């Protein structure tokens, strides 16, 4: 037995295993707190599981850093947002707002698409006109397109508001007027006669291609600048946001899945859910199981018999089939999952605590306490609990990975809480969409590593606790 709490902590911290465990735990907590503060609680429902929110993203794109290892540089998906527009008043009374978008082109391939989104336009008299220009690294300028916001409907009163909820997405590359502009540009600058429909087959080639070899088959690398000029006809007119999207074949830190979702965000959002289920379930299970064990072991008799019988039977149930069955019937909310894990989780601890409590009951200091006339309650809480605590705490930590893995397994079987992104669900979607057979490793490896890492952290801490509770293991 341990003589003092201080000594126990010392023994615990003396091993590398525990130190590593504690460091990892801190890292997990930092990620969880960041995820909880950086994303709203309904992010999962509103954005993560809403395919529309990911329309502008490439599908099944590998992470951008694979470019560092490959001789061929993929075009990294870019969502360009402008800095504050430059505003000036023209002599004719209109206001011009100029947005600049800079692009440093280093890839060996062309973007897959080019689109612009415009959000929140408000005007009082005439609809604003938005024009897009592209300045190439060689100094040439292409007037890509120009369009006017839809005019007022009859009986509509100013201010006229457009695109306030859903932004307007203009697919620039499939617009025939754009093809015509490019055709005119090519004729003027290179004397080329290309029909607009020919350009429409791959407009990006002519926007970003190099003329040097004559056929625009390789990109012209260097610094590009998009200039978007919005002409407003009233001083009170305004535009909230304009952004440009260039479709790439690689994306971000961890790539995207089949819907286009940023896997890095999914992985980040998995931290709080996973830790929550693991820790909360484990703590409640420990409280219930530990208390029943002490009470049974100390009180004995009929109470003990009943507790022992029930815990024995529940402990011997095949956990996963029954859990699947119950969640299938009850619906897979996070609360149901926690509840069911608790229902099946407590008996192991009861059995362990009971056996320790039985030994303690016979010990001299408990007898002494009884002789002094202490109440049962006082003996249980004042004398037995402190002795049992290290065992219970060690077990509690050991249960955390069990529950984390169970939740992940349930999610993988399609029984995860659909309103929360979890690692298990990401893997389920990947598995069902054949990500392994297509080699989409960036979709399969990161969520799994996170599950392993989280579970591993608690296993390490539990291993570090072992010498504290079992002195025989202390020698090594």
């Amino acid at each position: 037995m341990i003589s003092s709490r201080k000594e126990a902590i010392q023994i615990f911290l003396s091993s590398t295993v525990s130190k590593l465990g504690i460091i990892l735990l801190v890292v997990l907590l930092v990620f969880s707190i960041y995820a909880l503060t950086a994303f709203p609680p309904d992010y999962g429902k509103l954005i993560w599981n809403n395919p529309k929110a990911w329309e502008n993203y490439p599908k099944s794109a590998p992470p951008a850093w694979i470019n560092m290892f490959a001789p061929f540089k993929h075009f990294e998906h870019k969502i360009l947002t402008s800095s504050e527009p430059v505003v000036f008043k023209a002599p004719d009374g209109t206001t011009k707002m100029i947005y600049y978008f800079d692009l440093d082109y280093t890839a060996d391939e062309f973007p897959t698409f080019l689109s612009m989104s415009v959000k929140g336009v408000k005007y009082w008299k005439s609809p604003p006109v938005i024009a897009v220009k592209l300045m190439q690294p060689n100094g040439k300028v292409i007037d890509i397109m120009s369009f006017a916001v839809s005019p007022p409907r009859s009986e509509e009163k100013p201010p006229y508001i457009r695109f306030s909820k859903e932004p307007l997405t203009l697919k620039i590359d499939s617009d025939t007027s754009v093809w015509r502009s490019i055709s005119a540009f090519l004729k003027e600058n290179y004397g080329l006669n290309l029909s607009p429909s020919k350009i429409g087959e791959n407009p990006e080639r002519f926007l970003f291609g190099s003329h040097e070899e004559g056929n625009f088959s390789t990109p012209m690398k260097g610094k590009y600048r998009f200039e978007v000029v919005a002409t407003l006809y009233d001083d009170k007119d305004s535009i909230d946001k304009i952004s440009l999207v260039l479709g790439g074949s690689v994306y971000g830190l961890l790539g995207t899945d089949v819907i286009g979702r940023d896997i890095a965000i999914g992985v980040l959002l998995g931290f709080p859910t996973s830790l929550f289920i693991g820790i909360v379930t484990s703590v409640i299970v420990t409280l219930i199981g530990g208390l029943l064990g002490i009470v049974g072991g100390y009180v004995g008799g009929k109470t003990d018999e009943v507790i022992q019988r029930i815990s024995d039977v529940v402990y011997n149930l095949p956990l996963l089939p029954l859990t699947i069955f119950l969640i299938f019937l009850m619906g897979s909310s996070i609360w149901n999952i926690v509840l069911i894990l608790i229902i099946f989780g407590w008996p192991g601890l009861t059995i362990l605590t009971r056996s320790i409590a039985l030994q303690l009951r016979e010990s001299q200091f408990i007898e002494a306490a009884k002789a002094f006339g202490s109440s049962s309650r006082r003996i249980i809480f004042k004398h037995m609990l402190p002795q049992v605590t290290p065992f219970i705490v060690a077990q509690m930590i050991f249960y955390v990975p069990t529950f984390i893995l169970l939740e992940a397994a349930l999610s993988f079987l399609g029984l995860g809480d659909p309103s929360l992104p979890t690692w298990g669900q990401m893997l389920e979607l990947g598995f069902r969409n054949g990500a392994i057979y297509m080699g989409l490793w960036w979709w399969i490896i990161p969520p799994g590593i996170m599950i392993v890492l989280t579970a591993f952290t608690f296993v390490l801490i539990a291993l570090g606790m072992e010498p504290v509770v079992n002195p025989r293991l202390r020698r090594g």
Partner: protein
Amino acid sequence: MRLARALAVRAINLLLVLFLVLFLVVIIIGATGTSDKILMSMVREEVSTYRQVISRTITDPEALNKAVETYRQELIKAYGLDRPWYTRIGDMLMRIIVLDLGTSKSLQTFSGSNKVIDLIMERLPNTVLLVTTATVLTFLIGLFVGVKLATAIGSKLDRALTYFSAISYALPTWWTGIIFILVFYFYLRIFPPGGMYSVPPPEGEFARFLDLLWHATLPIIVLVLATVGSSIYVTRTVVINIAQEDFVTVARAKGLSERIVRWRYIARVAAPPILTQLILGLAGSIGGAILTETVFGWPGMGLLFYQAITSGDEALILGLVYVFTLVYVVARFILEVLYVILDPRVRI
């Protein structure tokens, strides 16, 4: 005599587990209205067969409909669908015990039967094959490595295996499986991505066996990896405790070789508690089988379970929960008998 008594007590305990599960399941599906759904689909099934049969003798459509409707009402009464669910608990229990588990609404056996029990019986041997092989391997590896480690506490190997067992505990079986498929199928092309036999299966008994082995290798490795860590760790802990007992010191003092001390004195005493761990791990292995089979498309009960969940097949899920529990109870009993044989104290 004591042997028989010990076994009888265990058998009764396990039967109790089985009945409790059964009872709980019946109450839950009754209270949630799931049993109504299952029974109604059974009624529909029988009514449609009946309609086909009598349509040969009754040609008048009105009379036919009337006869079918009467039959339907009879069936509803016979199944007790006109009464509240709790009055049917006894019937339902009986029906499940005799393995009358209803029909699946989405899946069929190779021979075309959609009876739940046929479906399960077709898949059961495949699961047993997978789990038994993996469990035996885990036990043997755990015992062998654990004993070796325990006599070399603090060595580099010992420390490395401590980390390994921690990682193995933290590895979700199914994810390991996915990674294995990615590496050994997608990149290296040395193992098949799943299934039990090639399509079409090779000719000849021996070639078929090799084909089975080839398909079973990855799932078995995955199942063993998931459990072998804790098996090694438990053996190590048990053995460390035993190695500090007086009789071991005496054996060493007598000048017996380390080999004999290790395997005759320590391992023999350590075997029963290690087996206990295996028994306790059995429920986990069954869970592991559900996930591993799903990942590898191994046509066992686990894959069936996954298919039942994804198609929302209540009758099949119910049947599987029961049969899983039944298999578990039987396997537990076999291990308990083994335990009694291994541990002399229970026998005397």
